[in-house]
């Protein structure tokens, strides 16, 4: 009964976006055995430690815990003790949650949404034309060839050798009495480029967002160190959804992804979040791609300052603006004007052709 309750709780958490899997379920069963069952707080905190794995989950845990292990008044619980034969306090009392305590699916979603995320809006992905798929895949293939194994090629060109590998040198020279006659070298491991993509999915970009997402997905399939974020008013890491999933599945996952699809834009704030939380992704071998039209409702000063910080860290900042494809477009919006001094490459991204042209900017 106790175990069933815990397992039910794990399932309830999963339905609310927790990543807790079987390992966590087992761990939580151990937790329940390890802490004094009458200490409700210890049970709560123990389960929280075992079942959450990020700040977001940590923050919403308490609410979900209360929602599941109902808040029956003390008297009512005592009534239940009489009918149950197991004398094990809290768990025995609430081992199997009552129907009234189990929130309906809709309510559960509301709990998660209200706790962590801003307004949640599901966008329909069904209207994306399928005809561009092969070309997009081909593009990804070509990008892969261009971008990967950069270091290995450079090494060959410069004729550099890696560091001496002492371990293998000694091994190789034991038969010569240990004198390091024949040196062994450590190969410099060919390193792939890193790509960080920031996709604007605010209202003004909605015509392009879906197409650009497909592009990001194609990049993810071939570049191991790619990370993609979507942003409008807040930043959401979607790298995990794009990686190792078929396009259709990824799109489905994205549709369910809590983001402010087609809402307003806070580019500066989103870049700030990127700098604050994901700075490690921005290294000297990173190409930073931002796809946005530069309509920013935030402070252009923040946008400029944060973009400068990014530029200081990465190899190249590429700003793709779909509006650049228009004949008479001038980057005059406040946000765009503030950002331009810190952009290495300013390019259009309104068609597959313009995305193909992107290739030369990802090469160095």
């Amino acid at each position: 009964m106790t175990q069933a309750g815990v397992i039910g709780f794990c399932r309830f958490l999963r339905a609310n976006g927790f990543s807790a899997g079987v390992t966590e379920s087992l761990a939580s069963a151990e937790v329940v055995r390890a802490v004094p069952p009458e200490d409700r707080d210890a049970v709560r905190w123990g389960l929280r430690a075992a079942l959450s794995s990020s700040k977001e989950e940590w923050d919403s845990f308490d609410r979900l815990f209360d929602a599941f292990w109902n808040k029956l008044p003390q008297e009512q619980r005592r009534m239940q003790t009489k009918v149950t034969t197991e004398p094990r306090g809290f768990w025995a009392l609430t081992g199997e949650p009552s129907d009234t305590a189990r929130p309906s699916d809709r309510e559960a979603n509301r709990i998660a949404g209200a706790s962590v995320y801003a307004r949640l809006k599901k966008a329909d992905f069904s209207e994306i034309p399928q005809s561009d798929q092969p070309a997009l895949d081909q593009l990804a293939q070509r990008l892969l060839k261009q971008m990967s194994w950069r270091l290995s090629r450079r090494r060959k060109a410069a004729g550099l050798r890696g560091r001496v590998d002492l371990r293998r040198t000694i091994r190789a020279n034991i038969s010569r009495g240990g004198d390091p006659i024949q040196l062994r070298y450590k190969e410099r491991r060919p390193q792939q480029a890193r790509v960080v993509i920031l996709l604007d999915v605010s209202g003004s970009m909605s015509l392009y967002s879906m197409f650009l997402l497909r592009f990001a997905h194609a990049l993810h399939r071939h570049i191991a160190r790619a990370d993609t974020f979507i942003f409008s008013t807040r930043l959401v890491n979607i790298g995990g959804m794009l990686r190792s999933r078929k396009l259709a599945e990824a799109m489905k996952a994205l549709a369910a992804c809590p983001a402010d699809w087609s809402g307003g834009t806070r580019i500066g704030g989103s870049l700030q979040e990127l700098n604050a939380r994901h700075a490690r992704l921005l290294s000297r071998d990173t190409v930073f791609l931002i796809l946005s039209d530069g309509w920013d409702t935030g402070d252009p000063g923040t946008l400029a300052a944060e973009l400068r910080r990014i530029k200081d860290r990465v190899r190249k900042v590429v700003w793709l603006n779909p509006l650049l494809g228009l004949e008479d477009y001038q980057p005059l919006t406040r946000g765009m004007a503030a950002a331009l001094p810190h952009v290495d490459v300013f390019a259009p991204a309104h068609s597959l052709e313009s995305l193909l042209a992107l290739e030369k900017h990802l090469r160095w």
Partner: protein
Amino acid sequence: MRDIEAVVRGFEASGYVLDRALATAVYLLIRLGKPLLIEGHAGVGKTEVGKVLASFLGVELIRLQCYEGLDVNSAVYEWNYQKQLLAIKIHEKTDEETIFSSGFLLERPLLRAIRATDNSPVLLIDEIDRADEAFEAFLLELLSDFQITIPELGTIRARHRPHVILTSNRTRELSDALKRRCLYHWIDYPVFEKELEIVRLRAPGVDRELGAQTVGFVQEVRNLNLAKPPGVAETLDCVHSLRALGKTRLDAEAAEATLGCVAKSVDDSAKIRAEGIDRILARAAR
């Protein structure tokens, strides 16, 4: 014998104010032998948990500081090449077995934690988010089996499973697989009373009023959205500095003099001054 209360008291005796939620996590770390991943802002005492745990349990603390490019040679083991070369020189007929024996092995933190002979040490893996993914993957293997394979020597299995604490500043997401192996705890900035309690414990002899003023001031500064918000460590720095300067209360002048303890960049200092130190102090006093 050890229950959650004992953990709270033990940590307090070492000068660490521990709320019961974290105490529960630490208790489970000891009971279940699972690694504990602690995340939180800079300067809230994540690393300290590991240190205090070691002194609480009366065992050795083995610390591995992570950084980008951390590799097996500096985290796990390395052969002592100089010694090997010397050995080859001195004994003409040295064979491989001799120079690849444990006498020629330099233990790095992870191997040391595995080879502990007396009891389970505390292994503190600090700022795991700074290490690269490859190292994280290696760690994964270590944390599930608690064994290390050295090709020349064979597999070394832990006689006593170390108590593992990992800390992360959240500069990047850790892999799901790693998080799955760990218990998780998020340390937030402490509330006023708790932070005051920390000041009392860590800076004994400081006037209570001065402590309260400083804590209030720093807590207000945290709301200013600085690039590097001050943590508890900064509060303590500030209190110590004020005492060194012979101040008995925190006025605008004293706050200005010790601003370097609280703000760690030009931009942040400017932001605090723009907000007005007087005004922040007034808000804190309320």
